[in-house]
């Protein structure tokens, strides 16, 4: 059915210096369809979307959009133009203005440059918020909302713009399950109204929950387009990775829990509290143990591990490293005692955008070595080279600015930065967020391998399955308090849910 097609992309190619991001990729979207675009890091999903929305000019190929019942070729030069044509995007990283109100954010860059009627704007924004059940006020400044709410505002903004094609690039990576469900019902609602939705996500579950079709990309090339019912999960993964995935099942078996022993913990905190984490807590981790903090978004799991690393100002508590009492008042103290911390928000706290991959990799070790003892160029290059190979970081060269790498590769660079410091205790806060299945598995494998080598690891992930696979002990949090601890046989999805919900197990 020709006129069912909303959008058709043919033979799209795009290269960046040193990288062929897209090679003759086709993509078709029909009316009232939720179409998943799947692929590993650097497979070209984001590039395809950016070509479609005019962020990047394409090198070759054609894009057709259904206008009044017939397909016409379009040549989008800017996101603004795309928006006017009815192609709206919600990107992985929130691209709104944090210091404006929600209402302003919803209407900014739309329509005319003429006068703004603030009152109607606010009223209209309030209506949208209510319709979509978003718990925020229209006059609230955006950065006072949680990331989840900010994300929903971005979606609301796109939805409100009468779009034919709605692109959701990792919209759910910072939403908790309830919010995801809310988003899905919204997506189904839009679908029934004939909107074509392109959905990019790394959560396989979610793909099977809402999508109708899947297009798989690998290394910038089209693997194929499939009906959701024709493509079971395992096949999808193998299509994305280009190999059969025994690795995933191999991972299912996690390390058995050791019994409580008299062994001195690598790290032990009593009554630790910080500005952001005011409820003092006790915590310890043994050598080679992998444990995790779990809980809903905003339950205080990130704040707790930040306190361990002294990322926020410490307000109390005693800390023992290998049984010896030490003072950890700032991140540098923690680093000196062999603690590494991969932050939750890669863009804000992890990468140094304009600096090269090399400088990003050596940063932490360089700081530990000291202000007056810089690494020579050769030393730095040797380190960078080693870890680029070790972690399989895809980059044109080690001098490439980190901002031009894909999200997963950026994460690997940050991981390399901490591995280089040879930590005895590594805290990984959402290391697999916004990362494809292949890299996720790689990172999980790496975690287990490090643990075998004797590194203690605290692992935080929004995906409970991932936590169950890697951790041997789970600390459950609710409302900024530790409400339970699960280990061994107790660690089941059900038990975790019950503990989070505060019911007796």
């Amino acid at each position, binding site marked *: 059915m020709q006129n069912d097609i909303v959008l058709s992309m043919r033979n799209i190619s795009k290269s960046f210096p040193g990288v062929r991001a897209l090679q003759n990729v086709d993509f078709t979207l029909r009316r009232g369809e939720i179409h998943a675009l799947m692929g590993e890091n650097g497979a070209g999903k984001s590039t395809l979307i950016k070509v479609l929305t005019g962020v990047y000019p394409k090198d070759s190929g054609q894009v057709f959009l259904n206008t009044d019942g017939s397909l016409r070729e379009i040549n989008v030069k800017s996101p603004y133009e795309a928006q006017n044509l009815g192609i709206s995007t919600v990107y992985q990283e929130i691209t709104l203005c944090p210091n404006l109100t929600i209402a302003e954010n919803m209407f900014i860059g739309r329509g005319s440059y003429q006068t703004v009627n603030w009152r109607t704007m606010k009223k209209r924004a309030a209506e949208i918020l209510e319709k979509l059940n978003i718990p925020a006020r229209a006059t609230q400044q955006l950065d006072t909302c949680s990331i989840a709410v900010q994300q929903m505002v971005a979606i609301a903004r796109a939805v409100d713009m009468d779009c034919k094609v709605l692109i959701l690039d990792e919209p759910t990576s910072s939403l908790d399950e309830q919010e995801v469900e809310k988003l899905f019902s919204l997506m189904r609602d839009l679908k029934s109204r004939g909107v074509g939705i392109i959905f990019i996500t790394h959560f396989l579950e979610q793909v099977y929950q809402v999508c109708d079709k899947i297009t798989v990309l690998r290394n910038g090339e089209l693997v194929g387009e499939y009906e959701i019912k024709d493509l079971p999960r395992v096949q999808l993964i193998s299509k994305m990775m280009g190999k059969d995935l025994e690795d995933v099942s191999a991972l299912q078996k996690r390390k058995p829990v050791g019994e409580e022993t008299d062994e001195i913990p690598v790290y032990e905190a009593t009554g630790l509290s910080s500005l952001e984490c005011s409820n003092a807590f006790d915590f310890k981790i043994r050598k080679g143990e992998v444990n995790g903090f779990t809980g809903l978004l905003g339950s205080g799991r990130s704040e707790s591990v930040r306190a361990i*690393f002294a*990322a926020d100002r410490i307000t109390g508590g005693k800390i023992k490293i290998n049984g010896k009492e030490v003072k950890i008042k*700032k*991140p*540098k103290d923690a*680093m000196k005692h062999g603690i590494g*911390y991969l*932050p939750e*928000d890669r863009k*804000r*706290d*992890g*990468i*140094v*955008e*304009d*600096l090269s991959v090399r*400088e990003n990799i050596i*940063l*932490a070790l*360089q*700081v*530990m070595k*000291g*202000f*007056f003892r*810089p690494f020579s160029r050769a030393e730095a290059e040797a380190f960078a080279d080693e870890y680029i190979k070790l972690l399989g970081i895809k980059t044109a060269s080690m001098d490439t600015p980190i901002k031009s790498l894909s999200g997963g590769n950026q994460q690997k660079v940050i991981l390399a*930065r901490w591995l280089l410091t040879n930590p005895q205790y590594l805290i990984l806060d959402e290391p697999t967020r916004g990362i494809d299945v292949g890299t996720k598995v790689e990172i999980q494998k790496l975690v287990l391998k490090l643990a075998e080598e004797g590194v203690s690891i605290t692992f935080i992930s929004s995906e409970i399955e991932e936590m169950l696979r890697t951790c041997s002990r789970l600390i459950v949090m609710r409302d900024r308090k530790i409400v339970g601890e699960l280990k061994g046989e107790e660690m089941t999805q059900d038990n975790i849910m019950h503990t989070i919900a505060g019911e007796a197990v």
Partner: protein
Amino acid sequence: MGSLIKKFTRSQLAIPLFALFLLVIFNLIRDPSFFSIDIATNNDGNAVLSGNLISILNGASAIAILSIGMTLITSSCKGQDISVAAMAAIAGSVFVSVLRSNEITIPVLLLAFLFGCVVAVLFSLFNGILVAVFKIQPMIATLILFSAGRSIAYWINGGATPTISSPLITAIGGFIPGIPIPTPIIIMVVFLILISLLLRFTNLGLYTQVVGINEGTAHLNGISPVWIKLIAFIISGVCVATAGCITVCRIGLINHETLLLDAEMDVILSVAIGGNALSGGKFNLYGSVIGAYIIQALTVTLYAMKVPSAAVKAYKAIVIIVIVVFSSPVAKDFVVRMYKKLFKKQAEKEVQAKAA
């Protein structure tokens, strides 16, 4: 060839160097003897070098030194210090007041400079604390000393504009007997070498850029943004004192009203012409220094062309617009695209020729 041009257009120093090159070519066409260097005998009977090139290098010393501190502040604080010239007046006044209360000998001279340095660093730290600790926008924080600085300088010497004269002062502001190169040029070179060594043997460059690009990351990797910013202001303080003292020695008196008047804008401009983003982050010190020389070369060229001094600023502005526009990413992309187009057409022609 293509990659070479690409590399050149990508390099931060491309535009400033190209601008400097154009200025040189322009002057050589206009007057082939423009850059000739003569040996002349000055009032003190020394054989010294003179000529336009020397006066460009000499005249730009103060701005070039100031631009080094400004670059570090710009990179780490994402803003500029507009009080440098006023602080230079303060440092100059302190320098003169120490000199005048003693007989001028080399130790006294060094002591006076040291006093000037300490005072300038303290004032600069005042700015630094406002910016780094209280997180006030740099332009607002430094506006305080921008307005108050020259008044403070006025009080230091009781409102007078005393002169100082001594062979030692002329040696610093002019020539050291026996050395034909003006001393400010030598001081500038020494200063640049010291700063290069500092960047080479410490992590100042890396830390400053990390703080300027992403403070969150800096903090979580054990770098204290506050300290790095304060260090930038301390170094800038030393630059300010040096520039102030050189200028005092050159003119032989301190005039708190006119010493390095409006220099802060030239300094900021040097940083910008050098290809450094005024919004902070990545920086190249040498770019800023080249920027200072471009500005001075331009001024000297205009004077040589007999442009009335009142009109010089307008001409300067035109040239600066051109440089700044050409170094913008938009213009760079355009150049690369045009080059690609030309290159493609040529390649196609060759293919056609072969086919034929």
